[in-house]
């Protein structure tokens, strides 16, 4: 595929959209530079919801800061706490009980399911296919209720703590059985959705070849997560994480890098997530869920990477007398903004928002360390 180049010399018209727009789930501003309804260049402005979380976190006790990382994002909240706790655990050499590791994986994969379903529903809504969007939202409710059952809240569950998981998030037989049964339900529903989606020739023609991101360009822009795998690059951090050592799953890829590949990518990855959850339920070991036997000491800067639903998440901080120093968080959407701007180019305006949505944006995650320009 030839490389699309943004043309910057003769731009005629600019159409700004945002910060509130029906196709966007969160506040951001996008300026589309168009010529005859074809997007020549796009500029996404983030920083709209900059709350300065990293700055707030510095100086807080590490437990409190972990609770705060959850509030970075309402979609992948569990991943943020998980990685933040993992950072402290790596630095302080804390042994995590086997059972806690399994529960963390179950939570992580459930969250992947709910994030991917949100993506599918939102994607269908952006192409104005309300019926499919409703159907996926209906499926998503099953996952949301499972998460509410484990964590006690529909959005922010607060499951991982340093040394394991919160005891109230322990899974007894009844809960495991319910998760197991619901996985069957979700798999059935998702299979039905995927079959209908692929059989719907109008919808498939609408999303094929839109918002194309070639693999070469994706690597150049350092795109991560499913958006990268949808371009054909099999790179998944879960293959290297010790939490996932016991599990057998495939890294799914799709060839084209367009909206269709991205949507199918999420569908297939959801099946893999169901597979992992089933394995975890079948083999979950007995024992305690939290290791309280650890000591606090000062550390150098610690780093931790995990694979969250949208890509690679990076947390890093140093500990000093139990408090946090030098906190840096890098979320996957930060890397994917370039992909979003690139994917819009050459598409119709109606497809521009779709091209942005296809990279699964989460700007609330991303807006942290950006300086606001005051005028």
């Amino acid at each position, binding site marked *: 595929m030839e490389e699309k180049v943004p043309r*910057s010399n003769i*731009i*005629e*018209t*600019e*159409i*700004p*959209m*945002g*910060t*509130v*727009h*029906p*196709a966007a789930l969160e506040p951001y*501003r996008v*300026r589309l*530079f*168009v010529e005859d*309804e074809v997007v020549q*260049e796009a*500029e996404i*402005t983030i920083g*709209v919801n900059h709350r300065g979380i990293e700055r707030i976190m510095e100086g807080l006790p590490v437990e409190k800061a972990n609770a705060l990382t959850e509030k970075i994002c309402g979609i992948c909240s569990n991943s943020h706490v998980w990685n933040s706790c993992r950072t402290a655990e790596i630095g302080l050499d804390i042994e995590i009980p086997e059972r806690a590791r399994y529960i963390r994986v179950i939570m992580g994969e459930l969250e992947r399911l709910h994030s991917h379903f949100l993506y599918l529903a939102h994607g*269908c*809504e*952006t*192409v*104005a*296919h*309300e*019926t499919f969007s*409703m*159907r996926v939202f*209906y499926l998503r409710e099953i996952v949301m209720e499972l998460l509410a059952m484990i964590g006690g809240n529909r959005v922010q569950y607060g499951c991982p703590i340093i040394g394991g998981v919160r005891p109230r998030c322990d899974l007894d037989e009844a809960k495991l059985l319910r998760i197991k049964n619901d996985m069957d339900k979700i798999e059935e529903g998702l299979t039905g959705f995927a079959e209908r989606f692929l059989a*719907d020739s*109008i*919808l498939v*023609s*609408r999303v094929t070849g839109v918002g194309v991101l070639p693999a070469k360009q994706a690597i150049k822009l350092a795109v991560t997560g499913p958006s990268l795998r949808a371009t054909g690059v099999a790179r998944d951090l879960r293959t290297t994480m010790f939490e996932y050592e016991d599990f057998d799953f495939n890294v799914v890829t799709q060839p084209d890098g367009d909206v269709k590949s991205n949507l199918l990518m999420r569908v297939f990855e959801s099946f893999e997530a169901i597979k992992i959850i089933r394995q975890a339920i079948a083999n979950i070991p007995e024992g305690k869920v939290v290791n309280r036997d650890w000591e606090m000491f000062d550390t150098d800067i610690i780093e931790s990477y995990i694979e969250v639903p949208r890509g690679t998440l990076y947390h890093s901080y140093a500990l000093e007398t139990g408090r946090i120093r030098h906190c840096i968080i890098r979320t996957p959407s930060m890397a994917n903004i370039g992909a979003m701007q690139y994917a819009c180019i050459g598409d*119709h*305006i*109606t*497809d*521009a*928002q*779709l091209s942005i949505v296809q990279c699964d944006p989460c700007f609330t995650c991303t807006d942290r360390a950006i300086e606001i*320009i005051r*005028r």
Partner: protein
Amino acid sequence: MFETVATNSILAVIITVVVCFIISTLLPGIERKYVHARIQQRIGPPVTSPGIMAPIKFLFKENIKPSSPVPGLYKALPVICFLVVLSMLITLTPYAFAIPALASLVAIVGLLKVEEICYVLMGSLSKSIMSVRMPFPDRVKGAAHTKTTLSFIEDISAKRSLRMITYGSFPLYLALFAPVTAARSIFLQDIVLYQQANGPFLFTVSGGIAAIVFFIGYMIVLNEYPFSIIKAKCDVIEGPYMEYASKYRSIVFITRGFLMFTLGVLFSVLFIGIPATIFSPTILLNIVVVLVFVLMMGIFSAFTPVFTNRQLLPSILGATLLGILAIVLGLL
């Protein structure tokens, strides 16, 4: 003698229009509750809410000045649209057949064109808060292209309606002229008389094809998904209607249901040969035709995404070719 006939006719027209108008307000609710919500496996709003209660509610809202370069014209446009649809319905009653200049296909095509031009004007006159006027520091240091022409999202909408005028409404007009090939007259009276003598045009080969083309044209004129490019939620939000508030918005809401009804009646006049009059039981058939159209449109729109040019051009071209085929078959 002549005077009593005239007064009676006028009374009959008024009663017919009022009854049709009341039924038409139910149509958006029927589409939303019994088609969309049912397909989406939910309960859906009450039938009266979208079509009747929402317009009444808007009547009682503050009449805010729309942000538009020509507020007076912008506010007048929905009224014009409503009057256009009203005169179209009057044209379709048998009492109007006495005025040949009105009761002909040329008049109907003209009225529909006025309606479409109103969308262009609405789109270009609306300057809503949701795009350019949003107070956001766009052109700061480091921003790309600080010297471009700014364009409101409604401007795209206006351009698209212009495009719809040039080619989007072909299918409907072709389908309108298909019955002419059989009746050999553009006057509604002749078309109706011909069908009463020879059976409905719908049940001929040419009529069947033309009916399909009419349905596609019906959806295009009503701007329903998948042809709703001028008010697609995913980019232009509501397009031309963005700035209407209070009573003007309620007229916009009412006009939509009324247009649904009128186009259904138009079909029953041209393809089945039944003009709308309250003093004959055939009005029930008119209403059935209208309902069938609304249900079909609801089902079709629930299962399709919004089209872009890539899908729009082939589908309109296909429908246009079908329309030409119907006319050629009719002429043979």
